[in-house]
């Protein structure tokens, strides 16, 4: 199989796609096979991405020509330190989520479990594709695959979910179309779709307002997709009303992959020099990021539902990463990249915990957390850890990315960004400890509540009733990852992220 390793990039997208197709077929005959098949695919992808990352570390950038055609003519995969790293984390997060989804998927989509897993696999295929592609147009296609399946997965939820799903679809389509338009203008100007090729041609065309507009369109489109502050309106509702298993899949991954796409487009297509020195967008975007951080945090404060609160935290976290990147210095960019992987794990952690609680209580209002420390001690322990990481308490990984982001802010002399980060950390303290207080101080159930959680057997007696085993496994693994990522963040930054940043930064 030694020869297979050169095809690793292809395997990463081909295997989940194949698995999705096979799951669809198999499901009509035996729906028990769907889960094992999906998990197997997840495992293969995890292994492949780890292997690929290892190869990138030893050999440098890997280019894989699809159909054997050289770059400007054909499509290439391009894996470097940046997407190699993110790929590993994204595959891992997706895998953990897949494992965790079992019980609730069977419960929520009884008759359509096969379709759920197939859409799940297609969704992650799209994300993987976005991560490894080196072609600007191909990015759009995979973006749409991830989005389309995302709309369906979100829209399946009960109540307002369809409306949120449709809103997401409309906004998402605007975003993707703007990006497509931007790529179109680039194509008109350069005649190429390959990222590296475009980057080679563009400098000859500076200064051109058409390039600036193309840049703005691409960025604007991706900002919509990642829900940067004024364009975030679709996100909280979509993540809140989606089924729990779906929000714990979509929330950690979509925004982060979009932020990666932003970095990729800004750095590889338009180049660092253009994005940061030729045009003056850095300042405005930074202020948008600050608004996102402060606004997201404040809006999270007024939420009474756990998932909605977490969704607004996601909005704030997007600001962290966008802001860190647009600081344009080494520390800030390292922080942004580090935060992509950390935030993927942290968000997974809290959303999974929320999903576990929702499964047990059938409700995600904050009041449903009552007595949870007694009832689901392990889940809550993991949630505490996730919360601490989002607050930024060492040695969890959230602290270290925040460290870089703040140092980046100090280095750039951008006090507003530093203040925003600290305010958001403080708000996160309030947010999470409010949840923990409810779980810790308020007993299981106090009578006389007008709309109480559904009655279950053994209700009132604080018996331990943990999340399903699969979910618990995923939760504990995530918790471990939070700590490991924290302890190894120094290595990740020096050995990987610094290699991934543009050479200009030194």
């Amino acid at each position, binding site marked *: 199989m030694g020869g297979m390793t050169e095809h690793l990039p292809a395997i990463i997208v081909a295997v989940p796609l194949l698995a999705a197709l096979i799951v669809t077929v198999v499901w009509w005959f035996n729906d028990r096979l769907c889960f094992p098949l999906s998990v197997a695919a997840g495992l293969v992808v995890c292994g492949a991405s780890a292997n690929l990352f290892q190869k990138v570390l030893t050999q440098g950038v890997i280019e894989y020509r699809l159909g054997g055609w050289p770059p400007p003519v054909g499509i290439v995969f391009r894996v470097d330190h940046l997407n190699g790293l993110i790929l590993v984390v994204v595959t891992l997060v997706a895998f953990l989520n897949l494992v965790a989804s079992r019980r609730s998927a069977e419960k929520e989509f009884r008759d359509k479990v096969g379709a759920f897993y197939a859409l799940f696999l297609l969704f992650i295929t799209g994300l993987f594709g976005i991560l490894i592609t080196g072609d600007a*147009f191909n990015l*759009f296609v995979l973006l749409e695959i991830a989005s389309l399946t995302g709309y369906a997965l979100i*829209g399946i939820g009960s*109540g307002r979910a369809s409306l949120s*799903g449709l809103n997401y679809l409309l906004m998402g389509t605007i975003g993707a179309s703007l990006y*497509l338009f931007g790529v*179109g203008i680039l194509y008109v100007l350069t005649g190429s779709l390959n990222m590296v090729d475009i980057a080679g041609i563009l400098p000859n065309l500076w200064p051109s307002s058409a390039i600036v507009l193309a840049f703005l369109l691409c960025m604007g489109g991706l900002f919509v997709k990642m829900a940067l502050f004024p364009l975030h309106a679709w996100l909280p509702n979509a993540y809140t*009303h989606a089924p729990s298993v779906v929000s714990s899949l979509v929330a950690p991954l979509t925004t982060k992959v979009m932020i990666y796409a932003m970095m990729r487009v800004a750095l590889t297509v338009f180049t660092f020099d253009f994005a940061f020195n030729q045009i003056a967008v850095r300042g405005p975007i930074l202020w948008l990021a600050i608004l996102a951080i402060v606004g997201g945090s404040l809006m999270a404060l007024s939420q009474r539902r756990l998932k909605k609160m977490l969704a607004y935290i996601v909005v704030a976290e997007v600001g962290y990463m966008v802001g860190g990147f647009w600081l344009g210095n080494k520390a800030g960019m390292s922080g942004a990249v580090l935060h992509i992987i950390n935030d993927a794990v942290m968000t997974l952690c809290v959303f999974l915990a929320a999903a576990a609680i929702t499964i047990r209580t059938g409700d995600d209002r904050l009041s449903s957390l009552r007595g949870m420390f007694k009832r689901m001690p392990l889940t809550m322990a993991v949630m505490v850890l996730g919360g601490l990481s989002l607050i930024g308490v060492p040695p969890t990984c959230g602290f270290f990315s925040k460290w870089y982001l703040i140092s980046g802010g100090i280095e750039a002399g951008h006090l507003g960004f530093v203040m925003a980060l600290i305010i958001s950390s403080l708000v996160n303290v309030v947010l999470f400890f409010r949840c923990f207080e409810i779980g810790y101080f308020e007993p299981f159930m106090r009578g006389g509540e007008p709309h109480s959680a559904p009655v279950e057997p053994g209700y009132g007696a604080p018996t331990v009733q943990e999340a399903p085993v699969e979910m618990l496994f995923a939760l504990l693994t995530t918790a471990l990852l939070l700590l490991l990522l924290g302890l190894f963040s120094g290595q990740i930054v020096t050995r990987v992220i610094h290699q991934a940043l543009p050479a200009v930064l030194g």
Partner: protein
Amino acid sequence: METIGTLIIAKYNYWAVVVLIAIGLYAMIAKKNLVKKIIGMNIFQTAIILFYVSIGAKRGATLPIIEHGHGESTHMVHAADYINPLPHVLMLTAIVVSVATLGVALALAMRIYFHYGTLEEDEIQKKIIGDEPDKIDSSG
């Protein structure tokens, strides 16, 4: 003045695209009916498709199917004789994507209609506010 006029005429394809984009976006923002929004979205997407396709045009060129004799006797191919095929390929993809998006959008709209009994956004909003904001929707 005249030069600008000729410039505009020479680039009328972009004009059309810009107008279509504006129409599509306006429909998405201003229309209250969800299906009209979806139609707006489609106009927007179509405008971009038109943009790409118009890039591919070349004056005096024909469609990109290479004339060829049977057997080995192929003659020189001049790129200028054929229009640019790449945008067409790209737009085949984009059309498919927009059709797929349309399908999903309609499916979602259908679910919304079943749930709220209407597709007018303001009426839906009223119904949502009518529900207790804190309450979990149990239907659907």
